[in-house]
Structures are given as C-alpha cells and as structure tokens.
C-alpha cells in the first residue's frame, strides 16, 4: 500500500503540470490584462507609455514561454510569486482566506455526515414508510434549494426572531472560539444542508442495494440480531460509495462557495477567486487554481486509500 501511495503521489506531478499549462495559457488567451484594469479601470487617462512601463515591471512583456518557465521554476521552489494587484505574496493572500474556508468546509462536513448517516439509514430501513418519505422530502429540498438562498433565510430568521446577526469579522478559532463559531456555524449550516442531502441520498440508495445482497440474507439466516445485521454487515459496505461523495463535496467547498460567502460576508477563498479573476490578477489566479487542483488530487488519493482500509478486497497491488 505504501508503494501504491508513493506511486499515486508521483502521478500527481504530471496531473498538476497539466493543470499549470492549462491555467497559464487559458488566462493569457483571454483579452485584456491586469495593467489595463489597474490603470484605466476607473476611466482614468494614462499614456500608453506608462502602461508599457508597468507591464515591463510586472514582467508581462516577456515572451509567454519565458514567463511560463519562470513561473514553473519558482513553483518548484515553492515560491508562488506576488499578487500583481496587492503586491503581497500569493501565499500570504491565500493563507488568510484558506483558514476560514477550510474551517467552514470541515464544519459543514461534520454537520452533513452526522446528519446524513442516520437519515439515510433510517430512510433505507423504513423504506416506503413516512420516515422514508420525510427524509426524501427533506433531502430533495436540500438538493433543489441553493445554499446562498438558504443562507439568506437563515440570516433573515435570526434577524427577525432574535433581532441578532452573526459577527461579520473573522476571529480565528484559537483566538476566540465562541466568536468564531457564532460566525461560522451559519454558513456551515447553509452549505451543510445541501451536502447532507447528497450524502444521505447516497447512503439510502447504497444501503437499499446492500440490504438485498446475499450476505445480508446469510447473516439473517444465522440468526444475527437485526441491529447487528445493519451496523456490522450492511452499513460498512454501504458507506463505501458515500466516502467518494463526501471527498468530492469537501473539496468543492474549499473554493466553490462564491455566493454563500457573499451572503454571510465572509472573506473566503471563493471571494478571493472572484476578486482576482475580475482584476485579471494572473499570479494569484494561478496560485489558487494550483492549490485547489492539488487539494482535489490529494483528497482523491485519501479516498482511494480509505477504500482499501474499509474493503479488504482492494489492496492496490497491481
């Protein structure tokens, strides 16, 4: 398994290289660059000369292949460059936001998984009863209601019922856990609802399938307690496909919460993404895309390794 893990980590290099090539050149195919936006964005009049000068300063005048090479070499030394807009290191820009986004993603995952396992299991075991219908109704709601809208409803409810709104400035959890949690629990709930719906439905359908397996019949024929049939024989098998969904949803939450962050006024990765794209901040966009790509690849590897832990048939030796 160790060799398998190492193999997979080595395979990440070409994957990420491909991402790097794509993001770098796609960004430059799009017309317009940061200098135009920076200097002429407010309708100010600047001479062409000044623009050329700024381009030169940012290195944008050099041949593309040249720029790409520099970027690659820097990245190999874990130097992701500076933001072209704020001039601060890309790493610094991202780090502040990542803390918040990661925390929301983790909290949403915890909420979702804690709710989804009992919900999905109950729905499958009591298939065709009111329990099943309730779970299906609640989860179809989670899939169809946009998270940001649900977030707005949460905010409005808090405001109208308690005349209270969560704090709007981010306090790290190690500084003041109460302030931190009172701010982040709401967005985590808002996105956790949809997340929970996806996972609960997955668990329901895979548990229904597993309950029809021959080995469940064998367990019952042995006289195993029904509770044990579900928890020991069925659920462990049924959770496998759910792990994949959880992993993919988790990575999505890191960079994908653009509108929800806006609703809750959070300075997360999503917001930073929108900002940097609208500013054509090449280095920052590239840095973020690489970060999220790496996240995806790592989480996928983690899922595959988890599979092997849960399922003895998979031992990755070929």
């Amino acid at each position, binding site marked *: 398994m160790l060799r398998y893990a190492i193999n997979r980590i080595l395979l990440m290099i070409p994957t990420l290289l491909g991402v790097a090539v794509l993001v770098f050149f796609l960004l430059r195919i799009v017309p317009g660059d940061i200098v135009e936006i920076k200097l002429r964005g407010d309708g100010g009049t600047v001479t062409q000369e000044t623009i050329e000068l700024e381009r030169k300063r940012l290195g944008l005048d050099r041949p593309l292949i040249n720029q790409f090479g520099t970027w690659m070499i820097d990245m190999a030394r874990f130097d992701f460059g500076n933001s072209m807009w704020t001039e601060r290191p890309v790493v610094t820009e991202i780090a502040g936001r990542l803390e918040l986004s990661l925390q929301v993603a983790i909290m949403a995952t915890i909420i979702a998984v804690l709710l989804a396992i009992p919900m999905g299991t109950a729905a499958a075991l009591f298939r065709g009863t009111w329990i099943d219908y309730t779970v299906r109704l609640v989860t179809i709601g989670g899939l169809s209601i946009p998270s940001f809208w649900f977030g707005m409803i949460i905010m409005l409810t808090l405001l109208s019922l308690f005349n209270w709104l969560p704090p709007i400035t981010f306090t790290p959890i190690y500084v003041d856990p109460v302030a931190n949690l009172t701010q982040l629990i709401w967005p985590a709930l808002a996105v956790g609802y949809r997340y929970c719906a996806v996972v609960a439905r997955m668990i329901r359908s895979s548990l229904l399938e597993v309950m029809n397996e*021959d080995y469940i019949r064998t*367990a*019952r024929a042995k006289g195993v307690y029904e509770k044990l049939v579900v928890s*020991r024989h069925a659920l462990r098998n049924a959770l496998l496909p759910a792990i994949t969904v959880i992993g993919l949803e988790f990575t999505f939450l890191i960079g994908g919460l653009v509108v929800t962050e806006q609703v809750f006024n959070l300075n997360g990765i999503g917001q930073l993404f929108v900002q940097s794209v609208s500013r054509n901040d090449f280095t920052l966009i590239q840095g973020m895309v690489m970060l999220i790509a790496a996240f995806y690849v790592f989480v996928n590897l983690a899922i595959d390794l988890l599979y092997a832990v849960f399922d003895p048939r998979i031992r990755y030796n*070929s």
Partner: protein
Amino acid sequence: MTVVDADKDVRGPSAAPQEVAAPLLQVENLHTQFHTSRGIVRAVEGVSFSVDRGEVVAIVGESGSGKSVTALSIMRLLPRLTGKIPQGRVMFDGRNLLDLGDDDMRAIRGRDISMIFQEPMTSLNPILTIGLQIKEPLQIHLGMNDEQAQARAIELLNLVGITDPERRLDQYPHQFSGGMRQRVMIAIGLACNPKLIIADEPTTALDVTIQAQILELMKNLSRKLNIALVIITHNLGVVARYADRVIVMYAARVAEQGAAEQLFHKPRHPYTMGLLRSVPRLDRPRGSKLETIEGLPPNLANVTTACRFAPRCPFRIAVCDQEPPLYPTDTGSLSRCHRHTEIAEGKIVWASLGGAGLNFAANTEAPVLSVQHLTKHFTVSGGLRSAGGTVRAVEDVSFNIFPGETLGLVGESGCGKTTVGRLILRLEEPSAGEIHFEGVNLSTASAAELKAMRRKVQVIFQDPYSSLNPRMTVGQIIGEPLHVYKIVSGRKENEARVTELLGHVGLRPEMAERYPHQLSGGQRQRVGIARALAMEPSFIVCDEAVSALDVSIQGQIINLLEELQRKFRLAFLFIAHDLAVVRHISARVVVMYFGRVMEIADRDVIYSDSLHPYTKVLLDAAPVPDPTLEKLREPRLIKGELPSHLAPPSGCVFNTRCPLASQECREVVPPLEEKRPGHFAACIKV
C-alpha cells in the same frame, strides 16, 4: 480430504428409524405470495411435506416452481415488504414457526435450522473475516466468549476439510475459492449443531469434482451428527444420490412426492416422467433424440383452476380442466394427477420421439476447422504482494472439426475451454499455434478473408439474459447482422428473412416485435441461435449454450441445435461442463484440464472406456439420476482443487490430484498420444 466414511449408506428410504416420533419439520398447506406492482404472484400454493430427524429430503423443480420460496418461507426470510404467508403452518419441533415473534424466530435461525445458499461467491460478507462470520452465531446463540468461539471455529474448519484453520480464520472471503467458500458456509451452518439444514442449490455454482466433495461432506456430516437435510436442487443426479425422499414441485404446487427409489423408477406424474426423460444420462446408451416436455411453465400471476401441467401434458383429457388433488398412489407416493392409476397400470407411457438420430459416419472430408498447437498465455502484472507471471490459459491444443460434426469440449472452470472458443472466434490473439478455417490460416489471412470467416463462424453464448441488447427488439437483434453484411437488401426482405429465421428456431413471427425481457430464458436462447444462423454460418461455437436453462427447456434447445445441424450441415464446437449433455450432442469429445488436452475420443468410447485418470474422475463425480445405481456406487473423490495458474505443477498438470501420479509424472509433460485408433490421451500411465 477424507469424506468417504466407513459407514456406507445402508439405510433405505423406507427404513426411517424415527417412525414413532413426530416429524422434525412438518409443513402444512403452505401458501406464499408476493405482492408486486403487477399483482399478486402466488409463488407457493398449498405445499405440505414433512422431514424426519436425520432424514435427507430433496425438493426438485425448475426455476420459478417455488422450491426456494418454500425454503425461505420456512426460515421466514421472505422480502419483508412483498412476501406474505396468508395461510399454512410450519411445525418445527412442536412449534409453529409462522406464529413466533420476530426475536423468537431469530433465535431459531442458525441455532436449530441453518441454511446454505447457492452462491458461495456472494453469500459471505466481503469485508468481514471468515473467523468473525463463523464465530458470530456461536456468540449469539450459545453465548460463547471469544476464546471458546475461536476454538470451536477451528474445530469446524477442520470438520469441513479446510487445512491450516488458525491462519484461514483471519482471511477474507475473496481469498477463498468457490468450493472453499461453500465449505465455510457449511461450517457456519453446522456451528451450533442445528437439527435441520436447508441447502438451496448448494453446489450449482461449483464444478463437478468440487460438487461431489461438498455433497459427500454434507451427507457424511448429517449422518454423523444426525442432522436432517433438505436439499433444494434442479439436478436429478444429485437427488438420486443423496435423497431419501423427493418432492417434485411444478408451478407453485407439489406435483409428486415420495420415496426416492419409487419416484425415480415408478414415477406417477407425467411431469416427473417427462423430467426424468429429458435429462441426458451418462449411464444409458445415447438415445437418438432427447425427449422433452414441450412448452413453458405457466405464469404464476394468472393461473387457472385447471391442472397446471395440463398445457404441456401429452396425456391431458377433459377432467384435467379441474385441478387434481394429491392422490395417494400404488407406490406409496403422492401424485397430483387424475390419471395416476392409468400411469400405474402402464397404460400411459411417453411416446418416444423417435426420428433418425445423428449419424456420425467416419469423416473423410477436409476438416472445416483445424486447430494446431494452439497456445494462449496471459501475462499478469505483479504487485506488492503477488508476483507477476504468465497464466498458461491454453497450452498446445490441437483438434479438427469436420463439416456437420459436433465436437464436445469439456472441462471444469479454469481449464481454458472458453479461451479456446474465444481464440477460434478471433476475440483473442493466440500466443502460438495455428487455426485453419476452411483451409485458410487465420493468422496470415487477409482482411477480406477474415471478414468472410467472421460471417461463417458464429457463436451462441451461455447467458441468454445478458447477451441480448435489452433496448433492441428481437427483430432488430436478428436483423442487424443481415444489414451489416448486406445479406439482404431493403426492409421488406430483412423482415422476411427474420421471420424465416424465427421459424427455424421455433418462434412465431410476432416475436420479432418483443424485447428480450419479455421472453423466457429458453426463448432468448432461441433468439441467440437465430441471430447466429442469420449469417448462414458453417461453424458455430456454442459456449455453455444450454447451461443456464432448466432441464425441460435444455432438452428443447439441444434438439433444436441437432435439427439445425442436420438441416444446414453445421459444425459445432460445443463447450460445456455438463458431461451428459456433451455426450448426448457430440460425435467426439475433447477433455481439457488446466489449459491442456487430456483426452480426445469418440463420444461412446470416452464415456465407456476412457483412458485418462482425469476423465475417469470427472465421469465418476457426476451423479446419474438413478437412486439404485447411485446408492451402490462408492464415489471415488478427487482430492484437492485446481492448482494456482501462477504456479502450475511441473510435469503433468494433473499430477497434484491424480490417483496414479508417480515421481515420473512430476517430471515429464506427457504428450498427447494416439493410444488406440482415434483415441488420444495425455498420460504416461496408460
């Protein structure tokens, strides 16, 4: 493994020892229904039978006859939402199981009644160790602690013949072969010393030699521990060998039940008679044509009040419009037939279908297909735990097939018989050797020659359920190759040809509009045959073409194949694991083991006078449907299982299991030699 016990079967079915005591299990007027979206399916209707302590009772029937549902009803393991038992009693040891609360019933399952299922591959939980799965009932029912359960589990594995039990307990199901998994299932079933074991098709998924091992094991254990055994099966040979009493089910009802000897020798129901006649048998000279029961079993969603077998019964009369009760007959058995007395008096006998059998004259023509030194190696990439290597799937196989002839290819799973078929069809590229089809060497053939060959060589697959595209109608399935090869021009002509082809395989023209899921298994296989015929082939590979079908349907398809062979002068390569079927249909038979040819001979020679020890073992392991013969026969069991393909034995591949093996066998690969005229065997001992 040593399962041949000293105490042979001396107990006749009539001499059941516990005649005074109440039977262990008594099923009375059991009705089981499935409430589906398309209405109520009455899967079991009014079934009654009893099982004494230590007795072996077999329930036989075709798929859908209700035999498995009866077992699941006794165990109360029917699907909760759809399965209902509106009527009946299941008395077990003085209690009606149908009245018990859920937890009381649970306490009986695995403790007093165990069940062994058909599919050893899927019946064990893949993510739990074997040890846990064996210890579970011990801890639940007998309250053993982990140490006691561990000791008992080791004892059980020893009992069922699994070596090195301490280590095996920590392994997972996928690390066991199919036969080994079934042994584990038996160990689980035996764990709490039950009074009754219900085995639902326990060996259907296994090879003949492994089937014999498992059945002998079950029988000996049940004798030794005085456990009653209910074996559910469609295999009449298995019934004849092991059962004291037999229950024949047809369309949700008991058609006939009685002592095994009586039922096999003096059947009193036309269905039983037909069933016994439609099985190709190893112990009888091959008949010209296989007897069959025409037609299909009724749909249980809408049955009439007439006798259920009447539509297929050649002896139906006016009174058969009334459902007959179970009449007691002269033999002591029960028969659901109005005319059972006439059967007893010998006034009703199945007319022999007669007809000229296939006449295989010595063939002087050039072979249609000639295979020489065919070899196929697969490379398996290695990994962390297992070393890579070469799997020698097919090694140096040579044979000829002449026009209009059927060559049978038998062997157990993993012997390479399917790979040979795939190589001939050019679905795989051979590693070495040559295939000549109608004189053309296929390895050097041009693209045009290959295209012509693909038309002339067709295939019929085993599984009629998955080998037809579910989204295409029967007409489209059969018509597609006509279109692709431009055999017909235009839609009209295509339709006409499809109708003609359906006629050849005995299907009505309106079947062309149907989709595969609307057909029965036998009808689907007919469609598969029509599709193959569409190309006007001269040679057809039949890969287990009748294995998935019920006995009565299997006979119909075999007869159809023979009829088509005569009509179109087709050559068949008939790949199968059922020795009796192969014997019936083939002119010559090739026996393969572990990628190599063991023996080639004429059909009758190989069955009556085989030379190779493997062929002998194979023939011995297959039970014949005759209880008298079976009870006299001491089974010669083959020891062990198929060796690993990654570590093949040196010398003769069969030496690890061969009763004759000597040192020389481990050193020399025996060549396939002509020991007698036309009779080849690869063995240095004969």
